[in-house]
């Protein structure tokens, strides 16, 4: 089957068919496509239920069994189920996950690749105010405007988290899918950007450190319906082991710079990593 985002999900939990979901996020879709192809190569029948918007939209689908496998981000996932969690490092988060997940959902091995929320500024802005960490923002004497997706306003790590954890007051601008451009254009001076975004590298952005652990570490981790966890574990764990932080950025570059289709990127990555 091709890597199109079209194939249908079935609805009932079925052990014959693995329903792989993905967020409406191109990078997540590539990982899901890798899962799907790896499974197909191993002889599974796969349904793709890609582009399901945000976590809040697809978790119910996972819980109901409408989707059985999903590439997730450990920190955000944990915080979704346990907003009060104190876990911050990658291992703490991974260890806390099984307890937080609802009945019927389990995580397989997490990969070393991370793609987590961050607060990022331009190099020029960082230079001007000597910024290296979020805490340094306290020294900035211009009004801070934070850009990010609409829902950031309500997230624990959003403007309120910034205020309560770092004592930093910011305005908020819901820049949505153009946060990066807005940062470049100067309509915002602080941006919520995912750390696997290749443009951090190419545009020379500065990701501010997060000493107080506002953001949880977020590694790529497969969430899977418990009914099929054992069946797919071998194949998917193999993928997770091979997926590295720089590898993830490279995948994103292939998509946004080389304009390759997710199916082609996935196939090539699987071949390069000898999983097929």
């Amino acid at each position, binding site marked *: 089957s091709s890597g199109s985002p079209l194939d249908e999900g079935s609805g009932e939990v079925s052990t014959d068919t693995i329903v792989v979901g993905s967020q409406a996020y191109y990078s997540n879709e590539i990982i899901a496509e890798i899962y799907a192809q790896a499974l197909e190569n191993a002889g599974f029948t796969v349904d793709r239920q890609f582009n399901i918007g945000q976590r809040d939209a697809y978790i119910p689908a996972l819980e109901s069994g409408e989707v059985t496998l999903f590439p997730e981000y450990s920190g955000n996932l944990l915080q979704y189920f346990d907003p009060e969690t104190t876990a911050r490092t990658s291992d703490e988060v991974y260890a806390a996950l099984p307890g937080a997940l609802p009945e019927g959902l389990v995580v397989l091995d997490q990969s070393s690749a991370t793609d987590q929320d961050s607060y990022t500024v331009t190099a020029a802005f960082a230079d001007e105010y000597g910024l290296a960490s979020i805490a340094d923002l306290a020294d900035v004497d211009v009004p801070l405007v934070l850009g990010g997706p609409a*829902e950031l306003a309500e997230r624990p790590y959003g403007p309120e988290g910034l205020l309560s954890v770092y004592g930093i007051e910011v305005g908020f601008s819901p820049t949505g899918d153009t946060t990066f451009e807005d940062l470049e254009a100067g309509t915002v001076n602080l941006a919520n950007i995912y750390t696997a975004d290749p443009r951090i590298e190419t545009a020379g952005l500065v990701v501010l450190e997060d000493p107080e652990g506002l953001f949880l570490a977020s590694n790529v981790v497969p969430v899977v319906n418990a009914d099929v966890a054992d069946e797919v574990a071998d194949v998917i764990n193999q993928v997770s082991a091979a997926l590295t932080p720089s590898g993830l950025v490279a995948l994103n570059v292939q998509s946004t710079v080389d304009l390759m289709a997710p199916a082609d990127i996935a196939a090539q990555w699987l071949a390069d990593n000898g999983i097929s």
Partner: protein
Amino acid sequence: MNLLVDAWLWLTDPAQWSGQFGIPTLLLQQLGYTAAAVGIAAAIAVPTGWAIGHTGRGRELAVALSGAARALPSFGLLILLILVLGVTRRPEAALITFVLLAIPSLLAGAYTGIEAIDRATIDAARAVGMTRWQVLWRVEIPLGLPLLIGGLRTATLQVVATVTIAAYVNLGGLGWPIIQGIPLRRFDQVLAGAILVAALALVLDAALALAQRASRPRGVRVLSRRPRRPLVSAAA
């Protein structure tokens, strides 16, 4: 029903009535974009429509272009324009999108208004010695006004419902509670947003319906009761 109660609670929460994302601000933004887009569209479409109706020329082209404009997906067009124009020109991108949305209805309203006038009436106006301009201003425009305002109604309704997507590109408006509510699965706020948009649309539509009634020249009002408004004529 629970959802309705929640939406009502959300609506009546004082927190929603102030600040950057407060309902008054959002309402003004929604109205502002609607008014600006419909205004600009009218400035373009109405004279053009009158010209088409008066001269009888260019109708085919107008129908074809209107058909294509109507097929344009606003959401995609908005994204395309932002990518092309850049994030600093979001308002322009949004305005262009909404203007394109409003033009077909207004254009059709302007020319069908004139076309729907009994030819004998226009003929009579010429026969008594009216100049072309007098025919246009004294006969065609007044008699075509109800259908034009009908077109204005349709355009306004379409635009005010569509301005909702402005929130998707950080332009605020009543779409904000919806756009923010969806990823957060806060349905009370989504429903409240939808109610606000629908209510605004209804109020605008009712106001324009009154205007349409008032615009119907008195002598004509006796004849046809049902207010009508044009669609883009997909009819060839």
